[in-house]
């Protein structure tokens, strides 16, 4: 019972997400985690390879603030992501959408892989297996002598 109470308290206590030195206060742990997840899944448009959570650029900080505000308004993670995509384009998410112009991006790797498999198969087929003549008596004797020598070392 006491554990349950503690758990309830934990989840209803105001908590903070600290990102790049900025504090964002939420009413529960769940929202704090959701905020951190959103900040990690949105890409900073200015700094290319950093998420909103990693970047200290002014635009990233503005966008984090907006994410925070939209969360306070009760918007879902999906709605917030869409809000950013509507303004900054597909670049802000790390997941490219599935559209005609992104087909190569989605299927390129599969295409290249299957091309490689086909290439290997066709090369194998064309490989001629040349029969090797069996060793002669003389060669066998020499092989045995070499083996003996190796064993005695």
């Amino acid at each position, binding site marked *: 019972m006491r554990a349950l109470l503690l758990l309830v308290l934990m989840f209803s206590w105001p908590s903070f997400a600290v990102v790049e030195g900025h504090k964002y206060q939420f009413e529960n742990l769940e929202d704090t985690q959701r905020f951190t997840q959103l900040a990690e899944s949105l890409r900073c*448009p*200015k700094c*290319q390879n950093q998420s909103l959570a990693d970047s200290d650029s*002014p*635009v990233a900080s*503005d*966008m984090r603030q*907006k994410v925070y505000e939209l969360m306070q308004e009760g918007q879902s993670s999906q709605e917030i992501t869409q809000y950013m*995509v*509507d*303004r*900054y*384009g*597909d*670049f802000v998410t790390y997941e490219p959408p599935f559209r005609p112009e992104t087909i190569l991006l989605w299927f390129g790797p599969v295409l290249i892989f299957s091309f490689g498999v086909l290439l290997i198969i066709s*090369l194998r087929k*064309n490989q001629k297996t040349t029969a090797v003549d069996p060793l002669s008596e003389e060669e066998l004797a020499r092989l045995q002598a070499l083996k003996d020598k190796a064993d005695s070392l």
Partner: protein
Amino acid sequence: MNRLLLFLPLGIFIGMGVLFWIGLHQEDKSALPSALIDKPFPTFILNTVESGESTNHLPEEPILVNIWATWCPTCKAEHAFLNQLQREQGIKIVGINYKDDLVKAKQWLSAYGNPYMFNISDPDGQLGLELGVYGAPETFLVDSKGIIRAKHVGDLNTKVWKTLKTKFEAME
């Protein structure tokens, strides 16, 4: 047939070489396409830099909307060209003073000249966020109906204007 296959690695190498070469010569790799092309200019209620009066609409004619700030070195480099565009070609430009200090902005305009019809002060960058601005200077081409037709990230100069001019003149 098999012999031709031997040239495959060379073919792949040349193909990749061409791709890399194109990549190297791309004008600006950090410029992202705008998500707002052919979309209406976002609504706003902000004060102008010049009079401090509130404004919520753009002039109903083809204009350039230029995002600038006094903390932005490229904006300074661009400013002379904007002056020239306005003076010599009569291009209408509206400025958005982005995340800037009002006093510094006024000083800038009196020191370097004011090519803008008026400037919208966006001290918190809220309009900038609506526009997907991620670095000044940025310039939008907005038609008389208030639809965004093109966007350029980085400074405007003679070379950039060559391509933008056709788009600007195509606007109604």
